[in-house]
């Protein structure tokens, strides 16, 4: 065992002396994880407000009140602007839409059941159908609330009825029978409103009336996705670091052969199993350092948290075993360092890209997700994510870990066999 430890310590020392290897194995994956985490950082669980420009051309108390209530709705991020400026903001994409309250808005808002309704213009790109529908809904909601407030206020509603009756008297283009019916209805409504107390009661049927009462209870959905972008990029960074380890140690075996040090090791009183165990131990330690370092940094500074620490340890061990095996196989891909490096990257890069090392698995189309099952990177990411934001149960974790362990053992045996025959 002492000889195996000496071999592993020597290999780690050799790796530590190659600055480029240290950088690309330990530091670069960390930087990549942070960089892509920042780039892909979204709003997380919070919902974004729609940014709109509001142009009030009417400048009446009613239009001012309407614009203010839009801002208070909580769903819109309001920027006040003139019409041309508002339209330009939409064209440039700075604002999703522009809402214009034209002249006459306030006057029309005083009418009830008669005359031209208050008009609002919405300027929006026709391709933004979802946002358009949402903005229309918010506008209708505010108009309905405005009506509701007036009907709940006796003085305001009687003033509105009086104004409507005046408009009706002065109107010439209305059918007399229709005029009579509306006049009668408004008169009845005026009497009804006059019979109500001036101050609305705090409760009961006569209190402020609403067409619909909505009771909202906060019930947060059980979150099944990553809590933030770093929970996706840190597992990817770990995998890139591990691939760096695999390449470094795979090539180091070839390098021992080409530089003659393997010959000296083979002459020493070491069995081949001890030789391979030393290499495997060094690679295992190096991979573990990558995993622990990135998970610690992610946990300390980027809110990358395991849902189960125990399962995370199991996942990391399975990944380490898998990639130690792959390292042994990579070391047999070429007889020179250049050949081994070229062949190694030719295998590892597609494996990483297909397995979700670049594009997160959950963003892949279904056919690509199915194809990714041949990549150990995919199973590794699944295991890491399973112990983090996918919240795997032990039963769910068993499959990726079993695949990784089996793959590691098969690759190690194949690599060891090739090493023995080469030696």
């Amino acid at each position, binding site marked *: 065992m002492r000889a195996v430890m*000496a071999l592993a310590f*020597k290999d780690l020392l*050799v790796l530590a002396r190659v600055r480029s290897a240290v950088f690309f194995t330990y530091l670069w994956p960390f930087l990549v994880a942070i960089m892509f985490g920042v780039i892909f950082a979204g709003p997380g669980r919070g919902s974004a407000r729609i940014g709109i420009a509001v142009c009030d051309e009417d400048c009446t108390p009613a239009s001012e009140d309407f614009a203010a209530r839009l801002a208070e709705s909580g769903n819109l991020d309001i920027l006040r602007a003139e019409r041309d400026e508002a339209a330009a903001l939409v064209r440039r994409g700075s604002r999703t839409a522009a809402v214009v309250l034209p002249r006459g808005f306030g006057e029309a808002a005083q009418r009830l059941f008669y005359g031209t309704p208050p008009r609002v213009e919405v300027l929006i790109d026709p391709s933004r159908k979802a946002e358009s529908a949402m903005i229309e809904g918010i506008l209708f909601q505010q108009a309905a609330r405005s009506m509701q407030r007036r009907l709940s206020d006796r003085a305001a509603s009687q003033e509105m009825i009086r104004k409507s009756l005046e408009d009706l008297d002065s109107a010439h283009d209305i059918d007399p029978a229709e005029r009579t019916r509306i006049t009668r209805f408004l008169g009845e409504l005026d009497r009804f409103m006059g019979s109500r107390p001036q101050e609305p009661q705090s409760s009961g049927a006569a209190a402020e009336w609403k067409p619909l009462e909505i009771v909202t209870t906060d019930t947060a959905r059980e979150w099944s996705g990553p809590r933030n972008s770093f929970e996706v990029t840190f597992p990817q960074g770990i995998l890139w670091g591990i691939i760096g380890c695999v390449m470094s140690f795979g090539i180091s075996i070839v390098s021992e052969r080409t*530089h*003659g040090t393997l010959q000296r*090791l083979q002459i020493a*009183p070491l069995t081949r199993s001890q030789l391979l165990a030393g290499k495997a131990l060094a690679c295992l330690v190096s991979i573990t350092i990558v995993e622990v370092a990135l998970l610690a940094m992610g946990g300390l500074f980027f809110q990358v948290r395991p849902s189960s620490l125990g399962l995370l340890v199991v996942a990391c061990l399975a990944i380490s075993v898998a990639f130690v095996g792959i390292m042994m196989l990579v070391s047999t891909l070429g007889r020179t360092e250049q050949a081994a490096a070229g062949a190694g990257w030719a295998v590892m890069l597609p494996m990483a890209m297909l397995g979700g090392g670049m594009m997160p698995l959950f963003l892949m189309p279904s056919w690509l997700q199915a194809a990714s099952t041949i990549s150990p990177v995919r199973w590794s990411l699944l295991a890491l994510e399973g112990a983090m934001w996918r919240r795997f149960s032990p039963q769910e974790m068993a499959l990726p870990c079993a695949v990784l362990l089996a793959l590691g053992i098969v690759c190690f045996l194949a690599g060891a066999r090739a090493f023995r025959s080469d030696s």
Partner: protein
Amino acid sequence: MLTLQDVHKRYGSITALDGLSLEIRRGEIFGLLGPNGAGKTTTVNIAVGLLAPDRGSVSIEGLGSPRAPAARRRLGVAPQALALYETLSGEQNLRFFGRIYGLSGRKLAERVDWAFDFVALAERRRDAVRTYSGGMKRRLNLAAALIHDPELILLDEPTAGVDPQSRNSIYENILALKRQGRTILYTTHYIEEAERMCDRVAVMDHGKVLALDSVPGLLAAHGARAVLVAELSGETVRVETDDPMAELHRLAASGPLGRFWVEHATLEQVFLNLTGRELRD
């Protein structure tokens, strides 16, 4: 100490060793002299158990096959290729090679100190090997072979590509090892090294031993006769003879004798006589 008996080894269609038999005696420096491709390195690799012979046997006195771990602990090898970790310091290299031979603690520290003193590299022990000169690397390569105090030392072209000072230092190291009672198998294609260092020399070519004896024995058996060169009556005369003094008297009687000298057979002549003069690549 080391016996190779009727050893055969082929690499595909190439015969590397063709019935090679050698017996290296305890305490001697045994030279293996041959042109490039003669089979010297294959002989060393089989002697240390790195290669298995196709036929024949190899044994180390009292230990049997060199593949046995106990035998390997008694063997020290300085391969022809510099088998060192260039990015590590000289000390880290020697400490590592000591550890894989089971050394540790004070014993390891003592052996490392001894090895650096022996090859005169103590002042550079903490420097990375890649900063060493070619001669220094050769000396460290030798030190790595000696770190575990082996009884049988195999040196494969230990002075290849080094300057005269380092070469001389390595010669002195090897002679010191012989004085300490170590047995040394020394392969080289430098004839003057074999003449200077070796108690016995085997001249080999095409995987066979062509001649094996002490240097005087080889000269006597395979060298040409001595040549008396003299200036007689203003002319240079060359006479091949077994008795240069008698021949000198005969020439002096025949006329005025100027300068004269005797050219003896050399190991190089023996080597060329045995292996031929065609170029080897």
